[in-house]
């Protein structure tokens, strides 16, 4: 039914291509292997390792958002992008805020 839908807005629906999926997949694998190798072989000190593996995770998040979830290919205005950005701000607040406040009340 939708195949013979010729309206203009159908074109920029979130399709993606095989190429984008393969690039995303390869990048994800690299970004997963790197932190595992670094941690399992004790290649760095503790703090740099934590920073490094967190950066790798965030990068992979970005890769999947763009190559798998096609964040940018939705119609404008991109309310999902706006909501996601706000959500990430709240997410960081929850985690960083909890850790900050609870350092004064640590148990164990």
């Amino acid at each position, binding site marked *: *039914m*939708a*195949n013979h*839908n010729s*309206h203009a*807005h*159908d074109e920029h629906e*979130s*399709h*993606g*291509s*095989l190429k984008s*999926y393969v690039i*995303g*997949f390869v990048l*994800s*694998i690299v970004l*997963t292997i790197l*932190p*595992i190798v670094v*941690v*399992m072989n004790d290649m760095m000190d*503790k703090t740099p*390792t*934590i920073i490094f*593996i*967190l950066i*790798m*995770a965030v990068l*992979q*998040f970005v890769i*999947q*958002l763009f190559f*798998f*979830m096609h964040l940018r290919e939705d*119609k*404008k*205005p991109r*309310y*999902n992008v706006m*909501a*996601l950005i706000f*959500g*990430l701000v*709240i*997410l960081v607040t*929850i*985690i960083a805020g*909890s*850790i900050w406040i*609870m350092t004064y009340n*640590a*148990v*164990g």
Partner: protein
Amino acid sequence: MAHTAAPHGGHGPNDHGHHDDHHDHESIKVLGFWMFLITDVILFGTLFATFSVLHNSTNGGPTPHEMFEMPGVIAETFILLTSSFTSGLAVLFMHKGNKKGLIGWLIVTALLGASFIFLEVSEFLKMVDEGVKISTSGYWSSFFTLVGTHGLHVSVGLVWMIALMIQIGKRGINPVTKRKVTIISLYWHFLDVVWIFVLTVVYLMGVM
């Protein structure tokens, strides 16, 4: 700031026929699912916050360093990552109108998801066997809750995916089933992203 809602806004008042009406409906549902996923981000964020605060609360009991067995976890990671990729392939075939390819890749995705759950459950059972339970200490409470909530999400996704395959088998590819596949693939990619953070924050930082 000032964007017009028309002509995509809601039940079409405009001169599109019923068909387009339907199309708008489906795109609104995809947006709603994005919103749901973002609330799920907050849900996992709260669990991660709890985990981070309690990450030293082993109460003198077993530590993650002693308990984690990385080979299994690494296998789980690559299985889930591959299933995220195959669910993308399913969407690709759907847009080509290839029903067999769509169902085929969905089956592959579901099988990979099922083996992920199998590995996770056996990991949990082994831990319980070795004497680590949800009631062992604050650390293990938050570990089982965080990782278990992710596993529960994957399991729900599996049931949903099977229901969806039956519907596609019966009804073929139409705007409604298309929207449903789009949504479940978003869900699946999202769960993969959450797992990457579980791997990083729970497992990799745990064995460091």
